[in-house]
């Protein structure tokens, strides 16, 4: 009897995998990324945005950053924090411990860049303002 069970087991095992054919008649799970994207959630930890007026220049953000991804940079006669997106680990500690909520992580997550410099969030209008917004 084991033989028969074995055979029917083997038989069912070879033909049940064809159940995948049902996927032909279903909508595919994947999205065509750059054109269709999931809606960003408002709590999502994406690219940084710095409010230049509110920033007191205390650099608590650069000290609390686990990867030392933030350091001061000269801009309009004063030092502001600059974020290196390559080093950042998106832990949002800088936003949590910034005394006057100047630096924030926006839900914007399109950070593909062709050149290394633009990976470092420079300060100019273009720098800290997310590009695609």
């Amino acid at each position: 009897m084991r033989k028969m069970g074995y055979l029917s087991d083997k038989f069912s095992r070879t033909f049940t995998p064809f159940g995948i054919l049902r996927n032909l008649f279903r909508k595919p799970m994947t999205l065509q990324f750059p054109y269709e994207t999931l809606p960003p959630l408002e709590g999502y930890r994406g690219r940084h945005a710095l409010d230049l007026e509110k920033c007191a220049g205390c650099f608590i953000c650069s000290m609390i950053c686990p990867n030392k991804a933030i350091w001061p940079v000269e801009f309009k006669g004063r030092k502001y924090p600059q974020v290196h997106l390559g080093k950042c680990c998106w832990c949002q500690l800088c936003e949590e411990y910034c005394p006057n909520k100047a630096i924030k992580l926006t839900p914007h997550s399109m950070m593909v860049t062709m050149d290394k410099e633009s990976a470092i969030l420079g300060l100019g209008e273009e720098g800290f303002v997310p590009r695609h917004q």
Partner: protein
Amino acid sequence: MINTVLQLCTKRESIPQLSVEERIDNFQEVEFGYAEEEMRKEASRCLQCEDPPCIEACPAHLDIKKYVFEAREGRYRDGLETILERLPFPATVGRVCPHPCEEACVRHTHFDPIANRAIKRFLADQFMDADWYPKIETKLEGKVAVVGSGPAGLAAAYYLAKMGYGVTIFEALPQVGGMLRMGIPSYRLPRKILDGEIDRVKNLGVEMKTNTRVESSDTLFKDGYQAILVATGAHQGIKLGIEGEDHPKVMECIDFLRDIALGKTVKLGDRVVVIGGGNAAIDSARTALRLGSKEVTILYRRTRAEMPADAEEVEEAIKEGVKIEFLAAPKKVFSKNGAVALENIRMKLGAPDASGRPRPQPIEGSEFKVDVDSVIAAIGQAPKAPEQFNIEIGRFGNIIVAEGDTFATSKEGIFAAGDAVSGPRTVIEAVAAGLKAADSIDRYCKTKR
């Protein structure tokens, strides 16, 4: 340069204090300042922000970043000089200031703010009896009269004298210092320190006439004074407004503290009730403890969060054994053959009133009676309007001053500053007002010439 996270996450250096037993029965100074090495460590915690919020928060806009940096480097004299530019008596302010700068410090929320007041006090104490204090720059022939020698009057006199004016201060009370001497007990501000700072103003050639009430502005103008600065402060205690208030055992906290300051002896008995929640109430309660009364309780209409007094002062008071009854207010005073009984009522917090704090409403039928030996009312002060200058007076007795920083009153040539204008505020705000008044008087005198 980027400080390491270890430097960011260091706790604040604790400020040494007298233990409760040593200070409970005498008027010795409670808090003595930092030792040098501790102070250097505390000053090195400062993050030297690019645009420091503490400077904006300080009413006198002291350059805190600069003097803390100089303190860290060990250049104490330069640090004191940067303070003296905007504050004539750092030692006093270093002891009694409610330090708004520490609330505004970037480290306040998570990382223990820098003890700016203690650093300022250390710098001032280093050079208490030094002689290099700034002298008069150039002698001008103008003469200015200052009525009232509170912090505002003294500061204005100091800066006017420095500019070269001949300044005389007229003080009604026997001693100079106004609220600094009368309102603040000596365990917080030792008299030696205060006198040392007032002598510094004297060394600039400022004449101080005590026990002289000024009758009218015309006599002063006739004596050749070009401008008069009214800085009479706010010594008028607000009445409780309940029945039986005029009982001899019910005292006003300002009069009580003034009598103690002037050395009179006041008999309080064992059980004392202080009504009110500000610094004055806390000071009178702690002074009562030091005078030997056993049981001191403070009645306050709202809860601890809304108390206007300094958080540290409240903690010190509780540590010394003062009991605080929240959400309670006096209703009636009974006098039973000499002893005083006080009927109070429970309160509950309602909608926020004009000052933004929730308005207390009495709960019907929740009265409770307390037998006490004496009651001190400390629910606030108001400025007493000096009518003799017949200048425009506001509703609460404060002097109406023109817009902007001119501090000019309705009559030409008469200026006003300090608590007399703004109502009871902190010492540092009075000093700042005095500084600005001095500048506007200087401008006025220059235009008149």
